[in-house]
């Protein structure tokens, strides 16, 4: 079939076009006609539709996300901020680190293994695109109830996909989260984070500058994968009967990506590109229009030069294809020979498909005929912006006013049973059934990984400089109070890296929500962004990038608002880090921070299906003081572990089980409050007896409550009169996942 050209489009303004099927609204289509002064060609329509989808254009979130810029704290470390493929921060010694989280939720529900695998592949290419060597990945996950049949279908596949892809790339998996809640039934969340490192001078940007420079497509050949994936899979409400959408599944080829990484790094090392962009959502439509738009504006591409896996693809399909493992580079003509040589060495297909031109039009031809002629900014950066209606849902006040009642175990046998019940619950239980499927050792720089509070990797072997990252979200809190929930997630992530001795430096985030067309969801979203921006301003941490995933709902039920916050920090000498657990008897245990009766949204409430109450109010000033204390006192801490979901009971259980060294704990007041409350801003530390005075002084100086709660040693966990032998505790903690997932 002859393709629709610009000439034809100009001559046939009345042609009816399927813009609605492609996800465009009537006024959006009208705007495209206005921009072009004619109807779009079918290829132009394809490009606009994918680029103006929620996933690519952030049309519902943009007005809110601006706050991250407007309220951004000054940070001397910020080298590249929001807007590029990933943010970059200075970590000293000439190194720059880039990191980002992205979601791949809907594809992972449709095809768990491939969806999760390609989620990892995509975020890794974002990091590579910045000029960095990817050095680690993390995977915050959310699932429906652990014993639900659909969870049993998706979880093993998702975990295998994350492992299958990341392991094959040689990227250590250094952390993540696995949380179960019924709101994720039929809509699991698969977020993937990647971190990479480079020298300052190696930073690359996605920008096509310099008329005459060549546009090179390299990596895998283009096939029919994921056509319409962006608009259909990511931006529309998913309904479970959508079999027709299944062909848009993409299959990942991690071997090709591994070779692409090494090939690109060799190209970067010889400084052979002036701009580079990965091909992710919206494929070539996105790469060409973004590169051109960020550059001088002009670009010419011969689409028939694109190497195809499936020769029957139409130009529209080639523009929309989301075939994985592809990159697009802008190369000066004098460097092209060397560029292609390196690609040949790695057996990577590379093709010059166009060049940067004067002017400000992106012109795409198909066998000599012009099929696209657009101002690239209108495709890539000037999409529609919506100020969606916002309304505070009625549940918020209703739930906040409930005076919740949770079971309050008191006798030793009740307390014992309660602890075993808590730590064997799927959210609290040992996750090594999952994490043992991930390579944590590859690259030889992993200092900490699961089950530590944060992941930590060494970035320089001679100086022992390292970075730590933690990702956190507490969706039950965000549901009750999204503003505080976001701040509390930020505080928790920052605390989780400070316990190890790393200084928080920068933030990334992945905001997983229901439909933006629901004013209640939009309120949750707006409050979340406001909370996170306020929190980051107060803590002096810039948001360097992130991702928004809307339409996470099954039928009309939205997921709990789930803002995953990732905090990255620096540690000057990884040899000095503080582990989460003590390895010997005779140490003194202290609880830093105060404990209130905070049961709203807690695990203890969740286990008993108790919903409602008021979340804690984040005190970020205090959190920062706690972080100061953790960093100042680092040399005296033999172990430090934060308190979050599951409270002290969970924290102390994890500490004694890690190295099989018991503890004797004294608590006062109601046992349930001491053990299960989730008041933020708390950490358990272990120190030598001779450092007690020093700790008390430091804590006092920082205004942090500090209380001796016991000593380490023995083969049991003894809490007042409640005794649990370590083997029994271990059994409860470790049996859950193998029992559920085989």
């Amino acid at each position, binding site marked *: 079939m002859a393709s629709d050209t610009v000439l034809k489009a100009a001559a046939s303004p009345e042609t009816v076009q399927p813009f609605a099927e492609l996800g465009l609204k009537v006024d959006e289509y009208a705007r495209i006609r206005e921009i072009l002064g004619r109807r779009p060609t079918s290829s132009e329509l394809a490009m606009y539709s994918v680029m103006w989808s929620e996933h690519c254009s952030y049309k519902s979130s943009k007005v809110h996300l601006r706050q991250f810029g407007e309220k951004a704290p000054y940070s001397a470390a910020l080298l590249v901020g929001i807007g590029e493929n990933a943010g970059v921060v200075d970590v000293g010694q000439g190194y720059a680190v880039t990191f980002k989280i992205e979601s791949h939720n809907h594809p992972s529900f449709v*095809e768990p293994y*491939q969806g999760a695998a390609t989620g990892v592949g995509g975020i890794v290419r974002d990091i590579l695109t910045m000029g960095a060597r990817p050095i680690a990945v993390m995977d915050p996950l959310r699932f429906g109830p652990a014993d639900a049949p659909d969870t049993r279908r998706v979880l093993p596949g998702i975990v295998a996909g994350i492992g299958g892809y990341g392991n094959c790339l040689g990227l250590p998996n250094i952390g993540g989260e696995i949380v179960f809640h019924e709101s994720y039934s039929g809509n699991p969340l698969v977020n993937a984070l990647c971190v990479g490192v480079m020298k300052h001078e190696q930073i690359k940007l996605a920008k096509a500058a310099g008329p005459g420079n060549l546009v090179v497509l390299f990596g895998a050949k283009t096939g029919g*994968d994921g056509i319409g994936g962006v608009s259909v899979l990511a931006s529309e409400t998913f309904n479970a009967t959508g079999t027709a959408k299944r062909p848009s599944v993409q*299959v990942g*080829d991690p071997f090709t990506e591994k070779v692409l990484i090494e090939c690109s790094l060799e190209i970067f090392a010889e400084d052979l590109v002036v701009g580079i962009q990965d091909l992710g959502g919206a494929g070539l439509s996105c790469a060409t229009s973004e590169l051109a738009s960020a550059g001088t504006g002009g670009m010419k591409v011969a689409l028939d030069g694109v190497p195809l896996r499936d020769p029957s693809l139409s130009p529209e399909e080639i523009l929309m294809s989301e*075939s994985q493992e592809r990159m697009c580079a802008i190369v000066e003509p004098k460097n092209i020979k060397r560029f292609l040589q390196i690609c040949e060495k790695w*057996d990577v297909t590379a093709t010059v498909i166009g060049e940067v031109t004067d002017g400000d039009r992106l012109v795409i031809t198909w066998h000599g005929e012009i099929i696209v002629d657009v101002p690239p900014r209108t495709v890539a950066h000037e999409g529609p912006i919506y100020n969606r209606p916002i309304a505070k849902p009625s549940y918020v006040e209703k739930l906040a006013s409930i005076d919740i009642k949770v079971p309050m175990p008191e006798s030793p046998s009740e307390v014992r049973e309660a602890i075993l019940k808590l730590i064997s619950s799927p959210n609290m239980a040992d996750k090594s059934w999952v994490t043992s499927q991930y390579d944590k050792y590859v690259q030889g720089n992993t200092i900490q990984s699961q089950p530590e509070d944060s992941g930590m990797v060494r970035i320089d072997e001679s100086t022992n400089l390292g970075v730590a990252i933690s990702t956190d979200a507490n969706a039950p809190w965000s549901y009750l109070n999204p503003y505080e929930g976001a701040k509390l997630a930020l505080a928790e992530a920052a605390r989780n890296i400070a316990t190890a001795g790393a200084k928080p430096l920068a933030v990334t985030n992945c905001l997983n929500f229901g439909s933006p067309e629901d004013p209640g969801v939009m309120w949750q979203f707006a409050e979340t962004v406001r909370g996170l921006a306020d929190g980051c301003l107060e803590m002096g941490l810039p948001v360097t990038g992130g991702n928004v995933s809307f339409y996470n709902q099954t039928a009309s039920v939205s997921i709990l608002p789930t803002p995953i916050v990732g905090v990255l920090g620096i540690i000057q000498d990884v040899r000095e880090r503080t582990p989460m657990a003590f390895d010997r008897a005779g140490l003194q245990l202290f609880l830093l921070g105060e404990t209130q009766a905070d049961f709203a949204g807690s695990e203890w409430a969740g286990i008993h299906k108790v919903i409602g109450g008021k979340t804690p109010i984040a005190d970020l000033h205090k959190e920062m003081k706690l972080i100061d204390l953790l960093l100042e006192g680092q040399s005296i801490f033999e172990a430090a572990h934060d308190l979050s979901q599951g409270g002290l009971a969970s924290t102390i259980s994890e500490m004694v089980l890690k190295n099989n060294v018991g503890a004797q704990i004294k608590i006062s007041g109601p046992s349930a409050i001491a053990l299960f409350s989730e008041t933020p801003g708390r950490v358990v530390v272990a120190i030598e007896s001779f450092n007690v005075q020093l700790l008390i002084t430091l804590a006092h100086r920082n205004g942090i409550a500090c209380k001796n709660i016991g000593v380490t040693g023995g083969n049991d966990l003894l809490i007042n009169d409640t005794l649990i032998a370590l083997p029994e505790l271990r059994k409860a903690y470790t049996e859950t996942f193998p029992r559920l997932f085989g």
Partner: protein
Amino acid sequence: MAKIVVDVMLKPEILDPQGQAIGSALPRLGFSFAKSVRQGKRFEIEVEGQPTQIQLEEIGKAAETLLANPVIENFSVRVEN
């Protein structure tokens, strides 16, 4: 005793990285005959006696739910002697 064979192949439009890797290794080994290679799975299921029509249908259902992933794969069931 009969053997039921279930062949499972990736759908033609789905990328087959395995077949691709083999396809590009063959010429390096001096074999130049292949236009394309695709790799799939073969299951051999042994059953007592000649399988009944009902059994074959059951196997078809098992293939669809367990042996193959209909999202990305096609399969075929046959009796082999």
